[in-house]
C-alpha cells in the first residue's frame, strides 16, 4: 500500500524500470546476435554440461572418422597387393604344372619356365614390400622401410628373410573399437624363418626346374606348396575384407552418432530464431513502454494546474 508518492520515488522507479527493460533487451539482443542460448555457463548450468559433453564427443567422433579413413586406405592397399600376389602365384602354379610335364619340354623350355618363376619371385618380393605413406604394410611397426629382404642382396636366389617386427598397426574407429589395419607378413607369405615361405617355395620350384633332368618329385611338392600358399592368401583376403567391413560399420555408427550429437548440441546451445525474434520484439516494446511512461509522468505536477 503506497500512502505517499514522492518525486524521488518516481524517478527511482523510472530509472530502475528503464534499467530492467534495457538489460532484458540487451540479453535478448545477445541471444539474437550470437544465435546461442548459452553464452556463459550461468545461462543454463545443466545444459552447459550437456553442451560440453556433446562438443567433446563430436570431436571424438570426428577423429574416429579420420581414423577410419586412414584405416580404409591401409586395408585397400593391402587388398590390391593381395590380389596381385594371388595372380602371380596363380601364374607360378600354371608354370609348375607345365614344367612338371617334362616329357613335352626340352631343357631350354624348362630353363625359360624357371626364369619366369624367378621373375615371379622377384615381383612378389616387390609386392611384399608395398608401402602405405612410407610404411611397409606387411612389416608390422618396423622403422626399417621394408618387410622382406634378400639375405644376400646381390644374389636373387638367396634366402628371403623377414625384416619387420611383430607389432601391429591399429586404428581406433569407435568407442572401444580398435581395428588392426596392417597385415602380418607371415600370414600372407608364410614362415620365412622356417624355410616355409612363398619365396622358399618359388625358389624350390625354380631350382627343381633348372635341375637336369627336371626333378619331378620336387616340382610336385612345389605345386602342393603353391596351392597351400594361394589358400593362405585367400584366407588373408577374407580376413582383410572382414576388417574393412568392421571399419565401415564403425564409421557408419560414428557418422550417425556425430549427427545425433550435433542435434543435441544445437538443441541446448542454439537459439530458436522465431522464439528469440518474438522475445526481442516484446523486450523492445517493454523498453519503449518504460521510456514512454517516464516521458508522461515526469512532465506533470500540480504546478501545471495552478495559476
Amino acid at each position, binding site marked *: 500500500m503506497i500512502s505517499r508518492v514522492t518525486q524521488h520515488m518516481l524517478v527511482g522507479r523510472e530509472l*530502475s524500470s528503464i534499467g530492467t527493460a534495457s538489460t532484458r533487451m540487451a540479453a535478448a539482443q545477445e541471444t539474437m546476435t550470437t544465435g546461442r542460448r548459452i553464452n*556463459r555457463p*550461468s545461462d543454463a548450468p545443466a545444459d552447459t554440461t550437456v553442451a560440453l559433453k556433446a562438443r567433446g564427443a563430436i570431436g*571424438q567422433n570426428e577423429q574416429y572418422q*579420420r581414423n577410419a579413413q586412414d584405416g580404409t586406405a591401409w586395408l585397400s592397399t593391402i587388398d590390391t597387393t593381395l590380389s596381385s600376389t594371388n595372380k602371380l602365384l596363380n601364374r607360378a602354379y600354371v608354370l609348375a604344372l607345365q614344367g612338371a610335364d617334362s616329357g613335352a619340354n626340352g631343357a631350354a623350355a624348362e630353363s625359360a619356365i624357371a626364369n619366369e618363376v624367378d621373375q615371379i619371385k622377384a615381383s612378389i618380393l616387390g609386392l611384399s614390400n608395398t608401402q602405405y605413406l612410407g610404411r611397409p604394410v606387411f612389416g608390422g611397426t618396423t622403422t626399417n622401410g621394408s618387410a622382406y629382404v634378400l639375405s644376400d642382396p646381390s644374389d636373387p636366389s638367396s634366402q628371403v628373410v623377414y625384416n619387420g617386427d*611383430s607389432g601391429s598397426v591399429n*586404428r581406433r574407429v569407435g568407442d572401444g573399437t580398435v581395428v588392426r589395419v596392417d597385415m602380418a607378413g607371415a600370414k600372407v607369405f608364410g614362415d620365412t624363418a622356417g624355410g616355409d615361405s612363398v619365396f622358399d617355395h618359388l625358389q624350390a620350384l625354380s631350382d627343381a626346374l633348372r635341375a637336369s633332368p627336371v626333378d619331378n618329385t620336387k616340382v610336385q611338392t612345389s605345386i602342393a606348396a603353391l596351392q597351400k600358399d594361394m589358400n593362405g592368401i585367400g584366407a588373408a583376403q577374407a580376413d582383410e575384407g572382414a576388417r574393412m567391413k568392421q571399419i565401415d560399420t564403425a564409421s557408419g555408427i560414428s557418422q550417425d552418432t556425430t549427427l545425433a550429437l550435433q542435434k543435441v548440441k544445437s538443441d541446448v546451445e542454439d537459439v530458436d530464431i522465431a522464439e528469440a525474434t518474438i522475445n526481442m520484439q516484446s523486450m523492445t516494446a517493454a523498453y519503449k513502454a518504460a521510456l514512454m511512461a517516464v516521458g508522461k509522468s515526469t512532465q506533470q505536477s500540480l504546478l501545471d494546474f495552478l495559476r
Partner: protein
Amino acid sequence: MGSTFGSLNVAKSGLQYQQIAIDTANNNISNVNTDGYVRRRAEAAEVGGPGQPVRWSFTDGHGQGVATESVKRLSDLLMDKRVRTEHGNLSFLKVQQASMERVEATINEPSDKGVASMLTAYGKAWQDVVSAPDGEAARASVIAAGQSLAASITTQARGLGTEVEQQQAAVTENVKQVNADAQKLAQLNHNIFVAKANGSDVGDLEDQRDQIALDLSNKAGAVVEAQPDGRYTAYLNGNALVPPAGTGIGPDVANTLVANNLATSGDPDQDPSTTGTLSYSIFAPGQDPLTDTPAIASSFALTSGEIGGESVLLNYTIKDYRAKLNDLATGLASVVNAQHRAGFDKNGTAGVDFFSFDPSKPGGAAAQLTVAIAGHPELVAASSNTDANGNPLPLPSNDATNADLISEVLLGKPTAAVPTDGSIGSTGWTGWTDTATNVHSGTNISDMYQSMVAGLGSTVAGLNTQTTNQTMLTSQVDDEREQTVGVSIDEETINLMAAQRAYQASSRVLTVMNEVLDTLINRMGV
C-alpha cells in the same frame, strides 16, 4: 479580546509561523533531489491563554496565537535500520555477482577456445600421432596442441589471480573507507549531541549521519542503531566499531577495523590450499595494529556488505575454483606424464614427462603448466616396447600403442591410468571431491572440468537470482522509506499555498486590527 495590542501579537505569531512554514516548504522543494535528504515539517503549537487568569488581568482566556514548536525531521529510525540491513545484503551479493561474472567470462565456456575444446583437440592430436608416428608433423602437432591446452589453463589461472588481486585491493580500500566513516560517525554523534543541547537545528547533520550509517552498512554490513541519547552506534558482527558513549573507552571515539591475512588470502602467488583465511579485528583507539593484541575483537568474519562479499570470494568461491583448477592441471600432468613415461620416443628411448610445472612457483600447477618437450617432436613417446601379445618389440618402432592410450585417458574413456578414486598414488595427485556431495565428480579429466564449469555456472546463476531478488526487496524497502522521508512537490505546493493563504489571512487580521485601533484612537472622543 484581551489587551489593546494583544491581538496584534496573535496576528504576528501567525505571520511568523506561516513564514517558517513557507521556508520549510521552500527548503523541502530545493532538496527534492538531494540524496539522503529527509523532509521537514514545521510543527505548529497553539499558544493557549493562561489557565488561571490573575486578578485584574486583561486576558479573556482565549488562545494567544501560534508558536513554531519545531521543524521536525520526518525520519523513521526503524525503517532506516531496515533499509541499511537490506542495502548491506545487496552489496554483499552484488560484489560477488560482479566478480563471478568476470570469472565466468575468463573461463569462456562453452566455446571453441576454452579448456574443454583444447582437451578434445589434444586428445585428437594424439590419435593423429597414432596414424602417423613415423613423421615429424603429427608429433609436432601434439606438442602444439599440448601447448594450447596448457595455455588455456594458465590463462584461466592468471585470470583468477587477477580477480583475487582486485578483490584484495577492494578490501583494502573498503576497510579504509569504513574506518573513515566510523571516525565521521563518532564526530557527528558528538556534534549533534552538542548542537541539540544548544538548541540548534541538527537536521542537516542528521542527514549526513544517516548517509554515513548507510555507507557503513553498504561497505561492511555494519549494524547501526540509535541510542537513547541520540547517538548512533555501529557494530560489525556484534563487535563495536563505534561504541555507545560512556562505555569502555569514553564518548565519541571510533575503533579501528583491520583485515587479517589479507595479503595471503587467495594469494595468486601461492598454492590455493596454503592460503590464509581473511578475517577481521577491531583495535581500540591508540593501539598499534602491527604490534598490539586487538582490544575489542579479533579474527571475526564479516558476512554482509561489500567487505563480506569480498571475503566470501577470497575465502571460498574463487579459492575453491582455483584449487579445482590446480587439481585439474596437476591431474592432467600426472596422468599424461605417467602414460608418456611408459612409452618410447622416436629414437627408442624411454619417454620423459610431457607436461611440467613447478608447484612451488607462483600460482601452483594451473598457472605454471607448460609442455616439457616443446620443440622436440622426436621425444613424443608414441610407441610401446611390446606387441599386442606381450612380446618385445624392437625399438625404435612405428608402434603407436602408447599414443592411443594417452588419447584414451583424455578422450573420455577412463583407463587404468585414472583410478576411480581420483588418486594416482606416487605421482601425488589426490584429485578433488565435490564439496557438496563429497563424491569424486569426474571419472576423467574432461568430466572433472565439465563439472567444474557447471558448478561455476550454478554459482553465478544462483548469485544472479539472489541479487535480482535482493534488488527487488531493497527497492521495496527504499520505497517504503521514501514514502516517509521523501519530498513530494505536489504536497509541498499545497503546503506552500496553504501557508501563503494563512499568511494573507494573518495580514488581513492586522489590517482589521489597524482599522479597529484607528477607530479607537483617532475617532473616539474627538
